[in-house]
């Protein structure tokens, strides 16, 4: 059954995911070229000074990439379910509704995680190409809240898409936006090192939460 669930989810997201993969590769390539360009036009020690002392984040162009990814994966997964009420087809499957929804979001989150891992590895490699490895590790740690932004974006969009009532959809979008805004408050590197576990804990609340709109969809009165 899990294979069947994965098959369906893959069929829905594959083109969007492949498009996103291309987007990620494109953005990472851009980042590579942009940093390479910086090192060609400026003295390397000056760029290191900007990065370490002035806390300038050379990799900021990719900060919203995970968020966009999360939202698009959710749209690809749950848009087709909501069109014409196809969600009813899924809810009639002989499987507990909550397990079904969790297996969907597990698949979606996994697809996002693959891209997040790609980002993290590529970021480490790109920064490590021109900076000592401390800076590469720091870049990945700095990017962690952005990656969490992908998670929040994914679940926020999922909640809004599965929800049958428009006003409640706005509530979910508002909550997600409020949590997202907390993830982009940085003024330099690694400022989330201490607070990130709390924010991850809060973001994990989305896992149980995602059952509610599905429940409301089935038990409308």
């Amino acid at each position, binding site marked *: 059954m899990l294979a069947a669930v994965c098959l369906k989810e893959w069929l829905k997201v594959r083109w969007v995911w492949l498009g996103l993969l291309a987007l990620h590769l494109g953005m990472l390539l851009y980042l590579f070229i942009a940093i390479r360009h910086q090192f060609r036009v400026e003295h390397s*020690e000056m760029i*290191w*000074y900007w990065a370490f*002392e002035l806390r300038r984040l050379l990799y900021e162009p990719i900060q919203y990439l995970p968020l966009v990814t999360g939202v698009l994966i959710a749209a690809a997964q749950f848009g087709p379910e909501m069109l014409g009420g196809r969600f009813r087809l899924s809810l009639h499957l002989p499987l507990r509704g909550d397990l079904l929804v969790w297996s969907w979001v597990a698949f979606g989150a996994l697809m996002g995680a693959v891209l997040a891992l790609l980002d993290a590895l590529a970021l480490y490699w790109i920064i490590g190409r*021109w900076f000592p490895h401390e800076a590469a590790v*720091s870049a990945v740690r700095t990017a962690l809240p952005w990656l969490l932004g992908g998670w929040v974006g994914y679940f926020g969009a999922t909640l809004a898409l599965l929800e049958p009532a428009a006003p409640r959809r706005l*509530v979910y979008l508002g909550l997600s936006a409020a949590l997202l805004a907390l993830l982009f408050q940085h003024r*330099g590197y690694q400022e989330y090192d201490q607070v990130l576990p709390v924010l991850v804990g809060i973001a994990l609340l*989305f896992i149980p939460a995602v059952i509610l709109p599905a429940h409301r969809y089935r038990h409308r009165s």
Partner: protein
Amino acid sequence: MTARLARWSLLLLTVFLLAVWWPLLKDLLFEYRYGKTDLFYSPVLERFVYKELLGEGHQFIYRDQDGTDYDRETFETLIPFIYYKNMELWGRLPLSLAGRSFDKAQIQAERQVLELDPVELPGHAPRIPLFPLFEANPGRARLRFPEDIMRPGERLAFINSDANRLDPELTRRFTAALTEAGFAWPVQDTFGRVSILKAFDAGYFLLDHAGDLFQLRRVDGVPEVTPVPLPEGLAVRHVKVAENKRGEYLGLVLSRDDRLFLLAQDEARRSAAGLIPLALPGYEPDRMALKILFNPLYRTAIYSDQREIKAVAMDKGFEPIASYDRTMAMAEPRLVDRVWEALVPFSLDLRDPNGRYLRLSLDVHGPLALPGIGLALVLAWLLLRQRGLHLPSMLPTLLLVGLTGLYGLIAVALIPPEAPHGAAGADRRLGRAPVPGAANA
């Protein structure tokens, strides 16, 4: 069951987000424009004087520690070493004080300010542990960035920034110099000031594994290591390097037990030459910003958190001669703060005024918040009753509102309980007897 868990997860999420964002919104709507009090030791009155903003616009007061008010100009003449340029403009230089006369050049030569902010302390801000070691004798007016960066660790490695590769020769040379000077590896901590906009370069202060402090400079490309003599039992927490033109003091040394020392300087060699203890009662470096003002007659240490400001005036030998502390006007609660504290039971603060790390500190309002909680409970009860709930089934939600006040109320209003399961609940509203078996959903 999972639907209930789902709703409660969303309620918690909502409460959390409200507790973070509402205080920010409040601060945005009711901005706080009062800054900290400016406190000085007046060499004229031999008393402390201060300047404070009391209200809207420019309602400054200029007052001494006995409560005597002054106009602005008089106030400035009470601290002439601070406003010496105004003194010059007003034709009051040279100054005659304590039987001595001070002209502009003398004042300038003896003025120095040393500062230590909590945000500078280790652990208060993230830091990539790589440090450019400047050439201390650049042979030109200005310092310039070296093309290699220092990585303190099991050895003192240097990485060339053009090649992003280790420089084995430099690494060997500097590591050997430190080892020769008795440095116990690995490096525990590194302190210094990374800037080319400073009068000279004092290099870095390296704390070794045994807790000893060494000053390392690069002079003509060669390592110069100076052990810093530390008082018995002193565990160094931080060294603030000032590299001021006025070369008497190189900076400040903070111990792990919050004692502060001036780092004296051997002016000829720009190297550390011992510590001078400062007696600063009530100084808490993790949350107080500190300033030490030097003038030709006195040294004044002024340190403050968000509520209180304290000051110790010392003679030139750093013997305390007077001290003073007061609660700043900015600490006086405003009406809006009182209303706020009564309205919500707590708030979560994301920003740390004493550090760069984001964190979530809980500010609990305590019994002050009871009115807000009471109001929230009544409203929540009305809301739940309107949705057809009876008291026993309301209790968990009321408990949430009781603990989280208006945050909980808003969360419950946004994500109210789902209509009771099965037809049984609906039957109740329709005034019918529930059909057996219809409610066990």
